[in-house]
Protein backbone atom coordinates (compact mmCIF):
# COMPACT_ATOMS: atom_id res chain seq x y z
CA UNK A 1 0.00 0.00 0.00
CA UNK A 2 2.69 2.43 1.02
CA UNK A 3 4.87 1.51 -1.90
CA UNK A 4 1.85 1.96 -4.11
CA UNK A 5 1.16 5.31 -2.60
CA UNK A 6 4.64 6.54 -3.30
CA UNK A 7 4.82 5.12 -6.83
CA UNK A 8 1.52 6.75 -7.66
CA UNK A 9 2.81 9.93 -6.15
CA UNK A 10 5.96 9.62 -8.21
CA UNK A 11 4.05 9.49 -11.47
CA UNK A 12 1.81 12.33 -10.33
CA UNK A 13 4.84 14.50 -9.60
CA UNK A 14 6.44 13.56 -12.87
CA UNK A 15 3.29 14.40 -14.81
CA UNK A 16 3.11 17.68 -13.03
CA UNK A 17 6.63 18.46 -14.20
CA UNK A 18 6.22 17.06 -17.70
CA UNK A 19 8.78 19.14 -19.52
CA UNK A 20 11.41 18.99 -16.84
CA UNK A 21 10.91 15.26 -16.36
CA UNK A 22 11.18 14.73 -20.08
CA UNK A 23 14.38 16.76 -20.33
CA UNK A 24 15.89 14.92 -17.40
CA UNK A 25 14.89 11.52 -18.60
CA UNK A 26 16.24 12.48 -22.00
CA UNK A 27 19.56 13.37 -20.43
CA UNK A 28 19.87 9.90 -18.93
CA UNK A 29 18.48 8.27 -22.05
CA UNK A 30 20.97 10.07 -24.24
CA UNK A 31 23.86 9.38 -21.91
CA UNK A 32 23.03 5.69 -21.69
CA UNK A 33 22.62 5.43 -25.43
CA UNK A 34 25.97 7.19 -25.91
CA UNK A 35 27.74 4.78 -23.55
CA UNK A 36 26.18 1.71 -25.12
CA UNK A 37 26.67 2.83 -28.71
CA UNK A 38 30.28 3.87 -28.22
CA UNK A 39 30.94 0.68 -26.28
CA UNK A 40 29.22 -1.36 -28.98
CA UNK A 41 31.08 0.20 -31.90
CA UNK A 42 34.37 0.08 -30.00
CA UNK A 43 33.95 -3.61 -29.25
CA UNK A 44 32.77 -4.36 -32.77
CA UNK A 45 35.74 -2.59 -34.30
CA UNK A 46 38.11 -4.31 -31.88
CA UNK A 47 36.77 -7.77 -32.65
CA UNK A 48 36.89 -7.06 -36.35
CA UNK A 49 40.50 -5.91 -36.12
CA UNK A 50 41.46 -8.97 -34.07
CA UNK A 51 39.91 -11.19 -36.69
CA UNK A 52 41.91 -9.42 -39.39
CA UNK A 53 45.03 -9.72 -37.33
CA UNK A 54 44.51 -13.42 -37.00
CA UNK A 55 44.20 -13.62 -40.79
CA UNK A 56 47.98 -13.85 -40.96
CA UNK A 57 48.08 -16.36 -38.17
CA UNK A 58 47.64 -16.67 -34.47
CA UNK A 59 50.64 -16.03 -32.25
CA UNK A 60 53.17 -16.88 -34.90
CA UNK A 61 56.75 -15.88 -35.41
CA UNK A 62 58.44 -15.83 -38.80
CA UNK A 63 62.20 -16.43 -39.35
CA UNK A 64 64.13 -15.43 -42.44
CA UNK A 65 67.79 -16.12 -43.18
CA UNK A 66 70.02 -13.13 -42.39
CA UNK A 67 73.59 -11.83 -42.22
CA UNK A 68 75.68 -11.93 -39.05
CA UNK A 69 76.37 -8.50 -37.58
CA UNK A 70 78.96 -9.58 -34.97
CA UNK A 71 82.17 -11.55 -35.23
CA UNK A 72 81.92 -14.89 -33.45
CA UNK A 73 84.60 -17.42 -32.51
CA UNK A 74 87.09 -16.02 -34.97
CA UNK A 75 84.58 -15.82 -37.80
CA UNK A 76 83.97 -12.43 -39.41
CA UNK A 77 80.70 -10.56 -39.45
CA UNK A 78 78.57 -10.37 -42.59
CA UNK A 79 78.30 -14.11 -43.12
CA UNK A 80 75.09 -15.44 -44.62
CA UNK A 81 73.08 -17.67 -42.27
CA UNK A 82 70.54 -19.99 -43.90
CA UNK A 83 68.66 -23.01 -42.65
CA UNK A 84 67.48 -26.19 -44.34
CA UNK A 85 64.35 -28.25 -43.99
CA UNK A 86 66.38 -30.72 -41.88
CA UNK A 87 67.28 -27.88 -39.51
CA UNK A 88 63.58 -27.10 -39.11
CA UNK A 89 62.94 -30.79 -38.37
CA UNK A 90 65.72 -30.73 -35.77
CA UNK A 91 64.25 -27.63 -34.15
CA UNK A 92 60.84 -29.30 -34.07
CA UNK A 93 62.34 -32.32 -32.29
CA UNK A 94 64.38 -30.38 -29.73
CA UNK A 95 62.51 -27.19 -28.80
CA UNK A 96 59.81 -28.17 -26.30
CA UNK A 97 58.14 -24.77 -25.94
CA UNK A 98 57.20 -25.07 -29.60
CA UNK A 99 53.69 -26.04 -30.63
CA UNK A 100 54.03 -26.06 -34.41
CA UNK A 101 56.66 -25.22 -36.96
CA UNK A 102 56.93 -25.39 -40.72
CA UNK A 103 59.42 -24.33 -43.36
CA UNK A 104 58.10 -22.36 -46.29
CA UNK A 105 59.77 -22.83 -49.63
CA UNK A 106 58.51 -20.27 -52.08
CA UNK A 107 58.60 -19.33 -55.71
CA UNK A 108 56.79 -16.39 -57.17
CA UNK A 109 55.35 -15.92 -60.66
CA UNK A 110 55.00 -19.64 -61.33
CA UNK A 111 53.03 -20.23 -64.55
CA UNK A 112 49.68 -21.98 -64.12
CA UNK A 113 47.43 -23.27 -66.83
CA UNK A 114 43.87 -24.56 -66.96
CA UNK A 115 41.68 -25.27 -69.96
CA UNK A 116 40.58 -21.66 -70.05
CA UNK A 117 43.24 -19.61 -68.25
CA UNK A 118 46.93 -18.88 -68.12
CA UNK A 119 48.36 -16.93 -65.24
CA UNK A 120 51.23 -16.70 -62.78
CA UNK A 121 51.09 -16.95 -59.01
CA UNK A 122 53.17 -17.59 -55.92
CA UNK A 123 53.59 -21.24 -54.91
CA UNK A 124 54.79 -22.25 -51.46
CA UNK A 125 56.02 -25.64 -50.26
CA UNK A 126 54.99 -26.27 -46.65
CA UNK A 127 54.25 -28.86 -43.99
CA UNK A 128 50.74 -29.86 -42.94
CA UNK A 129 51.01 -27.77 -39.72
CA UNK A 130 51.18 -24.64 -41.84
CA UNK A 131 47.40 -24.64 -42.19
CA UNK A 132 46.61 -24.16 -38.50
CA UNK A 133 49.36 -21.62 -37.94
CA UNK A 134 48.36 -19.39 -40.80
CA UNK A 135 44.60 -19.91 -40.55
CA UNK A 136 44.32 -21.51 -43.96
CA UNK A 137 40.97 -23.16 -43.36
CA UNK A 138 39.69 -25.37 -46.20
CA UNK A 139 36.18 -24.72 -47.46
CA UNK A 140 33.69 -27.56 -46.99
CA UNK A 141 34.61 -30.60 -49.08
CA UNK A 142 38.30 -29.79 -49.20
CA UNK A 143 41.36 -30.36 -47.04
CA UNK A 144 44.90 -29.11 -46.53
CA UNK A 145 48.12 -30.97 -47.25
CA UNK A 146 48.54 -34.06 -45.00
CA UNK A 147 51.35 -36.40 -43.97
CA UNK A 148 50.62 -38.87 -46.80
CA UNK A 149 50.95 -36.10 -49.37
CA UNK A 150 54.30 -35.27 -47.80
CA UNK A 151 55.58 -38.85 -47.69
CA UNK A 152 54.52 -39.72 -51.22
CA UNK A 153 55.48 -36.35 -52.69
CA UNK A 154 52.01 -36.12 -54.19
CA UNK A 155 51.27 -33.48 -56.77
CA UNK A 156 48.40 -31.89 -54.87
CA UNK A 157 47.68 -28.22 -54.34
CA UNK A 158 45.71 -26.08 -51.87
CA UNK A 159 44.50 -22.85 -53.48
CA UNK A 160 43.73 -19.39 -52.18
CA UNK A 161 40.08 -18.57 -52.83
CA UNK A 162 40.75 -15.69 -55.24
CA UNK A 163 43.34 -17.70 -57.15
CA UNK A 164 40.88 -20.61 -57.51
CA UNK A 165 38.35 -18.20 -58.91
CA UNK A 166 40.83 -16.73 -61.35
CA UNK A 167 41.78 -20.20 -62.55
CA UNK A 168 38.39 -21.89 -62.74
CA UNK A 169 35.71 -19.32 -62.10
CA UNK A 170 33.02 -19.68 -59.44
CA UNK A 171 32.17 -23.04 -57.92
CA UNK A 172 33.68 -26.03 -56.20
CA UNK A 173 36.88 -27.16 -57.84
CA UNK A 174 38.20 -29.80 -55.46
CA UNK A 175 39.43 -32.79 -57.48
CA UNK A 176 40.13 -30.80 -60.65
CA UNK A 177 43.50 -30.93 -62.29
CA UNK A 178 45.57 -28.14 -63.82
CA UNK A 179 49.17 -27.44 -64.68
CA UNK A 180 51.72 -25.80 -62.44
CA UNK A 181 54.93 -25.15 -64.37
CA UNK A 182 53.64 -27.72 -66.90
CA UNK A 183 53.26 -30.46 -64.31
CA UNK A 184 49.67 -31.64 -63.56
CA UNK A 185 48.42 -30.99 -60.02
CA UNK A 186 45.14 -31.97 -58.31
CA UNK A 187 43.22 -29.44 -56.22
CA UNK A 188 42.64 -30.84 -52.70
CA UNK A 189 41.18 -27.77 -51.04
CA UNK A 190 40.33 -24.13 -51.37
CA UNK A 191 40.88 -21.60 -48.61
CA UNK A 192 37.84 -20.17 -46.80
CA UNK A 193 37.75 -16.43 -47.37
CA UNK A 194 39.29 -14.60 -44.41
CA UNK A 195 40.01 -11.09 -43.24
CA UNK A 196 43.71 -10.37 -43.26
CA UNK A 197 45.37 -7.05 -42.50
CA UNK A 198 49.03 -8.02 -42.65
CA UNK A 199 51.12 -10.32 -44.79
CA UNK A 200 54.49 -10.98 -46.36
CA UNK A 201 54.67 -11.38 -50.15
CA UNK A 202 50.99 -10.66 -50.74
CA UNK A 203 47.60 -11.76 -49.38
CA UNK A 204 46.91 -15.47 -48.97
CA UNK A 205 43.88 -15.55 -51.25
CA UNK A 206 46.18 -15.32 -54.28
CA UNK A 207 48.62 -18.05 -53.27
CA UNK A 208 48.95 -21.80 -53.80
CA UNK A 209 50.45 -24.34 -51.38
CA UNK A 210 51.95 -27.75 -52.14
CA UNK A 211 53.82 -30.26 -49.93
CA UNK A 212 57.40 -29.15 -49.27
CA UNK A 213 58.62 -32.57 -50.45
CA UNK A 214 56.87 -32.12 -53.82
CA UNK A 215 58.19 -28.54 -54.02
CA UNK A 216 61.79 -29.71 -53.66
CA UNK A 217 61.48 -32.34 -56.38
CA UNK A 218 59.89 -29.78 -58.72
CA UNK A 219 62.45 -26.99 -58.32
CA UNK A 220 65.26 -28.47 -56.25
CA UNK A 221 65.44 -25.57 -53.76
CA UNK A 222 67.84 -26.30 -50.93
CA UNK A 223 66.82 -23.51 -48.55
CA UNK A 224 63.32 -22.56 -47.47
CA UNK A 225 62.53 -18.87 -47.91
CA UNK A 226 61.51 -18.74 -44.24
CA UNK A 227 60.12 -20.78 -41.42
CA UNK A 228 57.09 -20.16 -39.28
CA UNK A 229 56.85 -21.13 -35.62
CA UNK A 230 54.08 -21.11 -33.07
CA UNK A 231 54.66 -21.30 -29.31
CA UNK A 232 52.68 -23.48 -26.88
CA UNK A 233 51.41 -20.25 -25.36
CA UNK A 234 51.78 -16.68 -26.62
CA UNK A 235 53.80 -15.88 -23.49
CA UNK A 236 56.37 -18.55 -24.42
CA UNK A 237 57.28 -16.89 -27.70
CA UNK A 238 60.39 -15.30 -26.19
CA UNK A 239 61.75 -18.69 -25.23
CA UNK A 240 60.92 -20.20 -28.61
CA UNK A 241 62.93 -17.46 -30.32
CA UNK A 242 65.88 -17.96 -27.98
CA UNK A 243 65.87 -21.73 -28.37
CA UNK A 244 65.68 -21.60 -32.16
CA UNK A 245 68.53 -19.08 -32.25
CA UNK A 246 70.43 -21.38 -29.91
CA UNK A 247 70.01 -24.46 -32.12
CA UNK A 248 70.94 -22.65 -35.30
CA UNK A 249 73.67 -20.63 -33.61
CA UNK A 250 75.44 -23.80 -32.52
CA UNK A 251 75.21 -25.39 -35.93
CA UNK A 252 76.15 -22.34 -38.01
CA UNK A 253 78.39 -20.70 -35.44
CA UNK A 254 76.86 -17.34 -34.77
CA UNK A 255 76.39 -15.35 -31.61
CA UNK A 256 72.98 -16.25 -30.16
CA UNK A 257 72.76 -12.57 -29.17
CA UNK A 258 73.24 -11.48 -32.78
CA UNK A 259 69.87 -10.02 -33.75
CA UNK A 260 70.61 -9.97 -37.47
CA UNK A 261 71.84 -13.51 -38.08
CA UNK A 262 68.18 -14.42 -38.46
CA UNK A 263 65.46 -11.94 -39.33
CA UNK A 264 62.52 -12.40 -37.05
CA UNK A 265 58.97 -11.06 -37.19
CA UNK A 266 57.15 -11.81 -33.97
CA UNK A 267 53.50 -11.03 -34.70
CA UNK A 268 52.57 -11.32 -31.03
CA UNK A 269 54.45 -8.09 -30.38
CA UNK A 270 52.34 -6.18 -32.84
CA UNK A 271 49.30 -7.80 -31.36
CA UNK A 272 50.22 -6.73 -27.86
CA UNK A 273 50.62 -3.16 -29.03
CA UNK A 274 47.36 -3.36 -30.90
CA UNK A 275 45.50 -4.76 -27.90
CA UNK A 276 46.85 -2.06 -25.60
CA UNK A 277 46.05 0.65 -28.11
CA UNK A 278 42.51 -0.60 -28.49
CA UNK A 279 41.97 -0.88 -24.79
CA UNK A 280 42.86 2.79 -24.48
CA UNK A 281 40.73 3.67 -27.46
CA UNK A 282 37.69 1.90 -26.07
CA UNK A 283 38.21 3.41 -22.64
CA UNK A 284 38.30 6.82 -24.33
CA UNK A 285 35.01 6.14 -26.13
CA UNK A 286 33.32 4.89 -22.98
CA UNK A 287 34.73 7.89 -21.12
CA UNK A 288 33.00 10.25 -23.54
CA UNK A 289 29.76 8.32 -23.06
CA UNK A 290 30.13 8.52 -19.29
CA UNK A 291 30.57 12.30 -19.43
CA UNK A 292 27.25 12.55 -21.20
CA UNK A 293 25.71 10.27 -18.63
CA UNK A 294 27.10 12.30 -15.75
CA UNK A 295 25.52 15.42 -17.27
CA UNK A 296 22.24 13.52 -17.32
CA UNK A 297 22.79 12.58 -13.68
CA UNK A 298 23.21 16.23 -12.73
CA UNK A 299 19.88 16.88 -14.44
CA UNK A 300 18.22 14.17 -12.36
CA UNK A 301 19.68 15.60 -9.20
CA UNK A 302 18.27 19.01 -10.17
CA UNK A 303 14.78 17.77 -10.78
CA UNK A 304 14.80 15.94 -7.47
CA UNK A 305 15.75 19.17 -5.76
CA UNK A 306 12.74 20.83 -7.35
CA UNK A 307 10.54 17.93 -6.29
CA UNK A 308 11.91 18.42 -2.80
CA UNK A 309 10.89 22.09 -2.75
CA UNK A 310 7.39 21.15 -3.80
CA UNK A 311 7.08 18.40 -1.26
CA UNK A 312 8.53 20.08 1.77
CA UNK A 313 5.12 20.40 3.41
CA UNK A 314 4.30 16.78 2.78
CA UNK A 315 7.61 15.71 4.25
CA UNK A 316 6.80 17.85 7.30
CA UNK A 317 3.45 16.10 7.69
CA UNK A 318 5.06 12.69 7.45
CA UNK A 319 7.70 13.65 9.98
CA UNK A 320 5.06 14.99 12.37
CA UNK A 321 3.35 11.61 12.10
CA UNK A 322 6.59 9.89 13.06
CA UNK A 323 8.32 9.07 9.78
CA UNK A 324 12.01 8.49 10.44
CA UNK A 325 14.76 10.13 8.40
CA UNK A 326 15.65 6.88 6.76
CA UNK A 327 12.18 6.45 5.33
CA UNK A 328 12.13 9.93 3.81
CA UNK A 329 15.55 9.22 2.39
CA UNK A 330 14.56 5.88 0.92
CA UNK A 331 11.51 7.38 -0.71
CA UNK A 332 13.59 10.04 -2.41
CA UNK A 333 16.31 7.64 -3.48
CA UNK A 334 13.71 5.26 -4.80
CA UNK A 335 12.22 7.96 -6.97
CA UNK A 336 15.57 9.04 -8.34
CA UNK A 337 16.51 5.48 -9.11
CA UNK A 338 13.16 4.88 -10.79
CA UNK A 339 13.57 7.99 -12.92
CA UNK A 340 17.09 6.99 -13.90
CA UNK A 341 16.13 3.37 -14.51
CA UNK A 342 13.36 4.36 -16.90
CA UNK A 343 15.67 6.75 -18.76
CA UNK A 344 18.42 4.12 -18.80
CA UNK A 345 16.14 1.38 -20.11
CA UNK A 346 14.93 3.65 -22.92
CA UNK A 347 18.55 4.53 -23.64
CA UNK A 348 19.42 0.84 -23.97
CA UNK A 349 16.54 0.35 -26.38
CA UNK A 350 17.56 3.34 -28.46
CA UNK A 351 21.18 2.16 -28.57
CA UNK A 352 20.27 -1.37 -29.64
CA UNK A 353 17.89 0.04 -32.24
CA UNK A 354 20.64 2.20 -33.70
CA UNK A 355 23.18 -0.61 -33.68
CA UNK A 356 20.72 -2.96 -35.40
CA UNK A 357 20.13 -0.30 -38.05
CA UNK A 358 23.79 -0.11 -39.09
CA UNK A 359 23.82 -1.23 -42.75
CA UNK A 360 26.00 -4.21 -43.76
CA UNK A 361 27.96 -1.94 -46.11
CA UNK A 362 29.23 -0.18 -42.99
CA UNK A 363 29.77 -3.25 -40.80
CA UNK A 364 32.08 -4.59 -43.53
CA UNK A 365 34.52 -1.82 -42.72
CA UNK A 366 34.07 -1.24 -39.02
CA UNK A 367 32.82 -4.60 -37.82
CA UNK A 368 29.45 -5.35 -36.30
CA UNK A 369 28.74 -3.31 -33.16
CA UNK A 370 28.35 -5.69 -30.23
CA UNK A 371 27.66 -5.21 -26.55
CA UNK A 372 29.07 -8.01 -24.46
CA UNK A 373 27.41 -9.09 -21.24
CA UNK A 374 30.28 -7.59 -19.26
CA UNK A 375 29.96 -4.32 -21.18
CA UNK A 376 26.22 -4.18 -20.57
CA UNK A 377 26.64 -4.90 -16.88
CA UNK A 378 29.32 -2.25 -16.66
CA UNK A 379 26.98 0.31 -18.24
CA UNK A 380 24.20 -0.66 -15.83
CA UNK A 381 26.66 -0.33 -12.98
CA UNK A 382 27.68 3.16 -14.09
CA UNK A 383 24.04 4.23 -14.42
CA UNK A 384 23.33 2.78 -10.99
CA UNK A 385 26.18 4.72 -9.41
CA UNK A 386 25.02 7.91 -11.10
CA UNK A 387 21.44 7.33 -9.91
CA UNK A 388 22.60 6.78 -6.35
CA UNK A 389 24.88 9.81 -6.33
CA UNK A 390 22.25 11.99 -8.03
CA UNK A 391 19.59 10.87 -5.57
CA UNK A 392 21.68 10.98 -2.46
CA UNK A 393 22.06 14.73 -2.04
CA UNK A 394 18.43 15.75 -2.51
CA UNK A 395 17.41 12.76 -0.40
CA UNK A 396 19.71 13.81 2.40
CA UNK A 397 18.40 17.35 2.23
CA UNK A 398 14.86 16.00 2.48
CA UNK A 399 15.69 13.77 5.42
CA UNK A 400 17.43 16.60 7.27
CA UNK A 401 14.50 19.01 7.04
CA UNK A 402 13.31 20.17 10.43
CA UNK A 403 9.74 19.02 10.90
CA UNK A 404 8.53 22.38 12.24
CA UNK A 405 10.03 24.33 9.40
CA UNK A 406 8.87 21.83 6.82
CA UNK A 407 5.33 22.10 8.11
CA UNK A 408 5.53 25.90 7.87
CA UNK A 409 3.52 26.03 11.00
CA UNK A 410 4.24 29.68 11.50
Amino acid at each position, binding site marked *: MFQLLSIR*QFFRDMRHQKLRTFMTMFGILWGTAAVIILLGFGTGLYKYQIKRFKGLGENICIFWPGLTSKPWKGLPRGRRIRFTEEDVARIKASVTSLKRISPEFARSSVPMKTGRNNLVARVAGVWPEFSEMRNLIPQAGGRFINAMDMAEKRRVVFLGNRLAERLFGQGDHVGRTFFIDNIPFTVIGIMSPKEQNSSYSGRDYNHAWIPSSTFKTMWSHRYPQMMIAQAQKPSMMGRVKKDIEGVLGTKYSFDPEDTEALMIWDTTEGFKFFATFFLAFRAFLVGIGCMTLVTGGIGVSNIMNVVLEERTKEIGIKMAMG*AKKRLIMIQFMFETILLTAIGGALGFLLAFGIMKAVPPSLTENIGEPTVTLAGGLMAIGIIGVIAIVAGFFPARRAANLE*PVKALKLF
Partner: protein
Amino acid sequence: MISMKNIRKVYNTGKVSFEALRDINLEVEDNEYIAIVGPSGSGKSTLMNLIGCLDTPSDGEYYLSGRKVDSLTANELAGVRNREVGFVFQAFNLLPYASAYENVELPLLFSGMRSKKRKKRVVDLLNRVGLGEKLQNKPTEMSGGEMQRVAIARALGNDPKLILADEPTGNLDTKSGAEIIKIFDELWETGHTVIVITHDMNIANHCQRTIKLKDGMIYNGNGFPVKKQTASAAGLN
Protein backbone atom coordinates in the same frame (compact mmCIF):
# COMPACT_ATOMS: atom_id res chain seq x y z
CA MET B 1 2.39 13.34 32.04
CA ILE B 2 4.36 16.51 31.29
CA SER B 3 7.03 18.20 33.31
CA MET B 4 8.90 21.23 31.96
CA LYS B 5 11.62 22.97 33.91
CA ASN B 6 13.09 26.34 32.90
CA ILE B 7 12.39 25.77 29.23
CA ARG B 8 13.68 28.39 26.81
CA LYS B 9 13.36 28.60 23.07
CA VAL B 10 15.50 31.05 21.14
CA TYR B 11 15.13 31.59 17.40
CA ASN B 12 18.12 32.86 15.48
CA THR B 13 17.25 34.66 12.30
CA GLY B 14 20.41 35.95 10.74
CA LYS B 15 22.14 38.12 13.33
CA VAL B 16 19.04 38.72 15.40
CA SER B 17 18.04 36.20 17.99
CA PHE B 18 14.57 36.16 19.50
CA GLU B 19 13.48 34.54 22.72
CA ALA B 20 10.10 33.02 21.90
CA LEU B 21 9.80 31.20 25.22
CA ARG B 22 11.50 32.21 28.44
CA ASP B 23 11.70 30.26 31.61
CA ILE B 24 8.66 28.06 31.16
CA ASN B 25 7.80 25.79 34.07
CA LEU B 26 4.85 23.55 33.45
CA GLU B 27 3.39 20.47 35.08
CA VAL B 28 0.54 18.55 33.47
CA GLU B 29 -0.95 15.47 35.06
CA ASP B 30 -2.53 12.54 33.27
CA ASN B 31 -6.01 13.11 31.86
CA GLU B 32 -6.03 16.89 32.12
CA TYR B 33 -8.00 19.03 29.65
CA ILE B 34 -6.08 22.23 29.06
CA ALA B 35 -6.54 25.33 26.94
CA ILE B 36 -3.57 27.49 25.99
CA VAL B 37 -4.51 31.09 25.26
CA GLY B 38 -2.65 34.29 24.61
CA PRO B 39 -2.15 37.02 22.06
CA SER B 40 -0.71 36.31 18.65
CA GLY B 41 3.04 35.85 18.78
CA SER B 42 3.04 35.00 22.47
CA GLY B 43 4.64 31.61 21.82
CA LYS B 44 1.67 29.25 22.00
CA SER B 45 2.57 27.22 18.90
CA THR B 46 6.20 27.22 19.91
CA LEU B 47 5.28 25.73 23.26
CA MET B 48 2.96 23.20 21.64
CA ASN B 49 5.68 22.06 19.24
CA LEU B 50 8.03 21.51 22.14
CA ILE B 51 5.41 19.55 24.05
CA GLY B 52 4.76 17.41 20.96
CA CYS B 53 8.46 16.78 20.30
CA LEU B 54 8.24 18.43 16.90
CA ASP B 55 11.01 20.70 18.07
CA THR B 56 13.59 20.75 20.83
CA PRO B 57 14.09 23.46 23.48
CA SER B 58 17.16 25.70 23.50
CA ASP B 59 17.44 25.23 27.23
CA GLY B 60 15.78 23.48 30.14
CA GLU B 61 14.50 20.03 30.94
CA TYR B 62 11.46 18.29 29.57
CA TYR B 63 10.03 14.99 30.82
CA LEU B 64 7.24 13.30 28.87
CA SER B 65 5.60 10.34 30.66
CA GLY B 66 8.62 10.23 32.92
CA ARG B 67 11.12 10.08 30.09
CA LYS B 68 13.63 12.86 29.47
CA VAL B 69 13.00 14.02 25.90
CA ASP B 70 14.69 17.44 25.63
CA SER B 71 17.83 16.09 24.02
CA LEU B 72 16.73 13.08 22.01
CA THR B 73 18.00 12.51 18.47
CA ALA B 74 15.80 13.28 15.46
CA ASN B 75 14.94 9.61 15.02
CA GLU B 76 14.07 9.11 18.69
CA LEU B 77 11.82 12.16 18.55
CA ALA B 78 10.13 10.69 15.46
CA GLY B 79 9.36 7.58 17.49
CA VAL B 80 7.89 9.64 20.34
CA ARG B 81 5.68 11.62 17.92
CA ASN B 82 4.56 8.43 16.29
CA ARG B 83 3.44 6.61 19.43
CA GLU B 84 2.92 9.04 22.26
CA VAL B 85 1.55 12.20 20.72
CA GLY B 86 -1.41 12.91 18.44
CA PHE B 87 -1.30 16.21 16.54
CA VAL B 88 -4.25 18.19 15.18
CA PHE B 89 -3.49 21.37 13.23
CA GLN B 90 -5.46 24.42 12.29
CA ALA B 91 -4.64 23.85 8.60
CA PHE B 92 -5.54 20.11 8.86
CA ASN B 93 -2.26 19.14 7.18
CA LEU B 94 -3.66 16.18 5.30
CA LEU B 95 -1.83 14.79 2.25
CA PRO B 96 -3.90 16.35 -0.56
CA TYR B 97 -3.60 13.49 -3.05
CA ALA B 98 -4.35 10.74 -0.56
CA SER B 99 -7.76 9.48 0.53
CA ALA B 100 -9.10 9.74 4.08
CA TYR B 101 -8.13 6.10 4.47
CA GLU B 102 -4.56 6.64 3.29
CA ASN B 103 -4.12 9.70 5.48
CA VAL B 104 -5.22 7.87 8.60
CA GLU B 105 -2.99 4.97 7.65
CA LEU B 106 0.19 7.09 7.71
CA PRO B 107 1.22 6.83 11.38
CA LEU B 108 0.32 3.13 11.35
CA LEU B 109 2.65 2.56 8.40
CA PHE B 110 5.43 4.38 10.21
CA SER B 111 4.93 2.27 13.33
CA GLY B 112 5.07 -0.87 11.19
CA MET B 113 1.62 -2.25 12.01
CA ARG B 114 0.72 -5.42 10.07
CA SER B 115 -1.57 -4.83 7.13
CA LYS B 116 -4.56 -6.81 8.39
CA LYS B 117 -4.59 -5.16 11.78
CA ARG B 118 -3.92 -1.80 10.17
CA LYS B 119 -6.87 -2.06 7.85
CA LYS B 120 -9.24 -2.78 10.71
CA ARG B 121 -7.74 -0.01 12.80
CA VAL B 122 -8.12 2.62 10.04
CA VAL B 123 -11.78 1.71 9.49
CA ASP B 124 -12.47 1.73 13.24
CA LEU B 125 -10.88 5.16 13.66
CA LEU B 126 -12.81 6.69 10.78
CA ASN B 127 -16.06 5.18 12.12
CA ARG B 128 -15.30 6.65 15.49
CA VAL B 129 -15.18 10.19 14.04
CA GLY B 130 -18.29 9.49 11.98
CA LEU B 131 -16.62 9.16 8.58
CA GLY B 132 -17.16 5.45 7.96
CA GLU B 133 -18.87 6.34 4.67
CA LYS B 134 -16.08 8.54 3.33
CA LEU B 135 -13.03 6.28 3.45
CA GLN B 136 -12.08 6.93 -0.14
CA ASN B 137 -12.74 10.68 -0.24
CA LYS B 138 -9.79 12.94 -0.87
CA PRO B 139 -9.41 16.14 1.19
CA THR B 140 -10.69 18.16 -1.79
CA GLU B 141 -13.88 16.12 -1.65
CA MET B 142 -14.60 16.87 2.03
CA SER B 143 -15.76 19.81 4.15
CA GLY B 144 -13.44 21.52 6.61
CA GLY B 145 -15.10 19.79 9.55
CA GLU B 146 -14.71 16.42 7.86
CA MET B 147 -11.07 17.10 7.10
CA GLN B 148 -10.45 17.98 10.73
CA ARG B 149 -12.16 14.77 11.82
CA VAL B 150 -9.88 12.79 9.47
CA ALA B 151 -6.95 14.58 11.10
CA ILE B 152 -8.20 13.58 14.56
CA ALA B 153 -8.63 9.97 13.45
CA ARG B 154 -5.06 10.12 12.16
CA ALA B 155 -3.81 11.61 15.44
CA LEU B 156 -5.34 8.69 17.34
CA GLY B 157 -3.64 6.10 15.13
CA ASN B 158 -1.19 4.54 17.56
CA ASP B 159 -3.42 5.31 20.55
CA PRO B 160 -1.35 8.13 22.08
CA LYS B 161 -2.13 9.31 25.63
CA LEU B 162 -1.50 12.93 24.70
CA ILE B 163 -3.59 14.86 22.13
CA LEU B 164 -2.32 18.27 21.02
CA ALA B 165 -4.44 20.62 18.93
CA ASP B 166 -3.19 23.97 17.61
CA GLU B 167 -6.27 26.10 16.92
CA PRO B 168 -8.23 23.09 15.65
CA THR B 169 -11.40 25.12 15.09
CA GLY B 170 -9.68 28.18 13.65
CA ASN B 171 -10.70 27.38 10.10
CA LEU B 172 -14.16 26.03 10.92
CA ASP B 173 -17.66 27.44 11.34
CA THR B 174 -19.24 27.34 14.80
CA LYS B 175 -21.17 24.15 14.22
CA SER B 176 -18.25 22.12 12.85
CA GLY B 177 -16.06 23.58 15.59
CA ALA B 178 -18.50 22.38 18.23
CA GLU B 179 -18.44 18.88 16.74
CA ILE B 180 -14.66 18.82 16.93
CA ILE B 181 -14.69 19.98 20.55
CA LYS B 182 -17.21 17.24 21.29
CA ILE B 183 -14.76 14.65 20.02
CA PHE B 184 -12.06 16.13 22.28
CA ASP B 185 -14.47 15.89 25.21
CA GLU B 186 -14.97 12.20 24.48
CA LEU B 187 -11.24 11.67 24.27
CA TRP B 188 -10.75 13.37 27.61
CA GLU B 189 -13.53 11.25 29.12
CA THR B 190 -11.82 8.09 27.86
CA GLY B 191 -8.62 9.01 29.69
CA HIS B 192 -6.59 11.05 27.20
CA THR B 193 -4.73 14.20 28.11
CA VAL B 194 -5.93 16.96 25.77
CA ILE B 195 -4.21 20.30 25.18
CA VAL B 196 -5.86 22.83 22.87
CA ILE B 197 -4.58 26.19 21.68
CA THR B 198 -7.48 28.54 21.07
CA HIS B 199 -8.53 32.15 20.69
CA ASP B 200 -12.14 31.21 21.50
CA MET B 201 -12.85 32.02 25.15
CA ASN B 202 -15.89 29.71 25.12
CA ILE B 203 -13.65 26.77 24.35
CA ALA B 204 -11.05 27.94 26.87
CA ASN B 205 -13.66 28.20 29.61
CA HIS B 206 -14.95 24.78 28.60
CA CYS B 207 -11.58 23.23 29.47
CA GLN B 208 -10.49 22.14 32.89
CA ARG B 209 -7.56 24.49 33.07
CA THR B 210 -6.37 27.51 31.11
CA ILE B 211 -2.75 28.47 30.59
CA LYS B 212 -2.19 32.07 29.55
CA LEU B 213 0.90 33.00 27.60
CA LYS B 214 2.28 36.45 27.05
CA ASP B 215 5.66 37.43 25.62
CA GLY B 216 6.87 33.89 25.90
CA MET B 217 5.99 33.50 29.55
CA ILE B 218 3.18 31.79 31.45
CA TYR B 219 1.80 34.56 33.56
CA ASN B 220 -1.32 32.94 34.89
CA GLY B 221 -2.50 29.37 35.32
CA ASN B 222 0.98 28.21 36.14
CA GLY B 223 0.53 26.27 39.33
CA PHE B 224 -0.92 23.06 40.53
CA PRO B 225 -3.64 21.54 38.42
CA VAL B 226 -7.10 22.22 39.70
CA LYS B 227 -9.02 19.29 41.03
CA LYS B 228 -10.31 16.95 38.42
CA GLN B 229 -13.75 17.83 37.17
CA THR B 230 -15.92 16.63 34.32
CA ALA B 231 -16.99 18.89 31.52
CA SER B 232 -20.61 18.75 32.64
CA ALA B 233 -19.70 19.53 36.22
CA ALA B 234 -17.98 22.66 34.95
CA GLY B 235 -21.37 23.61 33.56
CA LEU B 236 -20.09 24.22 30.06
CA ASN B 237 -21.63 21.41 28.10
